[in-house]
């Protein structure tokens, strides 16, 4: 085996320049693919993080009936015991945020608009998505206060401002009528457009009282350390809540359209990666092809002195693998270093302003998710195996005499 390795190793370096060019080409492909993916993933992770923390949470616990009928009747009881239980389900859970959500009419003295009303714990909400940073005017509500903060878009439509009074009219739990007057303490420039035009935030206790839902919430939003842990955390949560009437949803289940959008956006870089690999694969194939053809005579000699076709194929496989291992390792190391150097990319000029206007920070963080490194390595290995088919077939079919004559 050592001899086969030695043979393969020296064969690779028979033509140093050719081998180096081939390796560099693969390194380049791996590097480009990883950097492209890391940038995409990095910006998507930020985007998901925003979307998720302003709407559904990475995970959400709900009553099992709430999904088919999003009504206050299907809210569930939430207390410290449940909170501890959920937090204890998985160490990767960082924060749990209770919300009581319903649809009501928001009114000034002349007109009404539909509004999504959220009963929230102000300090939790701040930890969760820093909503206070999006205040256009005034301040955020405090716990148990008879006051609201509302989306600026909605306030403008109702021609209301800070210090004015908002009327909320609707139905509470089990058909109880619910209405109340609340002072507006602040206006939010909500980063999600729809929410800006419809959201009203009340302290949780105030909302529960208004909606006759004392001690109840409609959803418990959960954050995890990293987006990609979502599924694993969902599994442990599900087993913890197995015997209850509570069910767990993940953000792709709650916002399938967001996932679709991302998939669509990722289609272009994916296609580019495929093209890149096809080109590189052809180059690799060219090298292996010449490495094979120029040695047919030698193969004939090896077979005639008693080397088995299987052993010879093994040597050629080792050659292909050595080339790809060297290329993949350097590609991964280089891309990691490069990503570390540029991370995070800070946008400037118009691009930065556009992003700031959307309520995002003007930086693109790089993703260092390990799977994107491994996946590229895997692709190269698959290509190497595919490329190896050529020398394999050649060796298996080689006519010793014809080879020796060539």
């Amino acid at each position, binding site marked *: 085996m050592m001899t086969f390795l030695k043979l393969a190793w020296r064969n690779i370096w*028979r033509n140093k320049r050719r081998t180096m060019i081939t390796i560099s080409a693969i390194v380049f492909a791996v590097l480009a693919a990883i950097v492209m993916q890391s940038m995409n993933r990095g910006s998507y992770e930020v985007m998901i993080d925003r979307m998720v923390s302003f709407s559904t949470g990475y995970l959400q616990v709900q009553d099992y009936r709430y999904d088919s009928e999003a009504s206050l009747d299907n809210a569930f009881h939430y207390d410290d015991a449940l909170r501890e239980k959920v937090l204890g389900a998985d160490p990767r859970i960082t924060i749990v945020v209770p919300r009581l959500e319903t649809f009501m009419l928001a009114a000034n003295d002349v007109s009404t608009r539909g509004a999504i009303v959220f009963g929230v714990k102000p300090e939790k909400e701040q930890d969760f998505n820093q909503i206070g940073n999006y205040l256009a005017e005034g301040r955020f509500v405090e716990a148990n206060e008879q006051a609201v903060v509302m989306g600026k878009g909605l306030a403008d439509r109702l021609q209301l401002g800070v210090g004015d009074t908002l009327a909320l009219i609707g139905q509470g739990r089990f058909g109880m009528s619910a209405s109340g007057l609340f002072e507006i303490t602040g206006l939010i420039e909500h980063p999600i457009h729809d929410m800006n035009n419809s959201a009203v935030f009340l302290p949780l206790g105030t909302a529960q009282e208004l909606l006759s839902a004392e001690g109840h919430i409609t959803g418990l939003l959960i954050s995890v350390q990293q987006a990609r842990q979502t599924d694993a955390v969902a599994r442990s949560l599900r087993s913890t809540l197995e015997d209850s009437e509570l069910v767990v949803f993940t953000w792709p289940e709650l916002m399938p359209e967001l996932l679709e959008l991302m998939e669509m956006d990722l289609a272009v870089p994916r296609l580019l990666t495929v093209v890149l690999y096809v080109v590189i694969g052809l180059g690799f194939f060219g090298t292996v092809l010449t490495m094979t053809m120029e040695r047919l005579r030698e193969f004939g000699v090896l077979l005639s002195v008693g*080397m088995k076709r299987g052993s010879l194929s093994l040597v050629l496989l080792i050659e292909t693998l050595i080339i790809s291992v060297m290329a993949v390792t350097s590609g991964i190391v280089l891309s990691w270093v490069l990503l570390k150097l540029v991370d995070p990319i800070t946008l400037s000029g118009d691009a930065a302003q556009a992003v700031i206007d959307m309520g995002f920070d003007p930086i693109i963080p790089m993703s260092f998710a390990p799977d994107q490194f491994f996946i590229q390595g895997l692709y190269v290995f698959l290509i190497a195996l595919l490329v190896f088919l050529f020398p394999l077939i050649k060796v298996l079919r080689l006519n010793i005499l014809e080879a020796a004559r060539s």
Partner: protein
Amino acid sequence: MTIVRTEKLSKVYNADTVPVHALNNVCIEIDEGEFTALRGPSGSGKTTLLNMIGGLDKPTEGKVFINGEEISKMKDSQRIDFRLRNIGFVFQHYNLIPVFTAAENVAFIMMLQGRDKREIQERTNKLLDQVGLGDRKDARPAQLSGGQQQRVAVARALASEPRFILADEPTANLDTKAAMNLLDIMEKMNREQSITFVFSTHDQRVIDRARRVITMVDGAIDQDEIQDPDNTQAG
């Protein structure tokens, strides 16, 4: 004891287009310890016969027995294995592995046989000493002269401890001195270890040193004579 026996051996190349009858009903026997030259005009079938005997190619008709085993009906993988254990080859063009040193070229065959590491090393040294290359063990083929390369090829052919060695024009690319040197080595091994040698050649000086000379013409055996190499050399 008979090492090689062929029965009505025939080989036709390009049977379906322009048939070339390279061998016609060749029957020969070669005994252990022979030092036999195969001669004949170009195209008379010497290489073809050696290839058949060595199991590098299959005859169109007839049979080849080596040590009583019918090599001509073996499967490809069986033949490769049989060659590894029984037959040594020396080709006209040295055919060493260019990326291996002289020692590695010799050791490789024994490695394929799965021998013990220490044994391989000892035997490699011994063989290279025998062919007079004890001091060039670590040279690559490209750093050796044609004669030296051909001596490595002989050492390699001997590495597997074959009963006999087939050599197709082993001296064709060598000058007289190198050719005679190679012959000396082959002869010594033949005499001292009674290894059987069968070699094809056009070279009269080489033919003179054989003890049996088989002459081929048009794919058939024309003459088969025993000679006293010391006499012919003297005359």
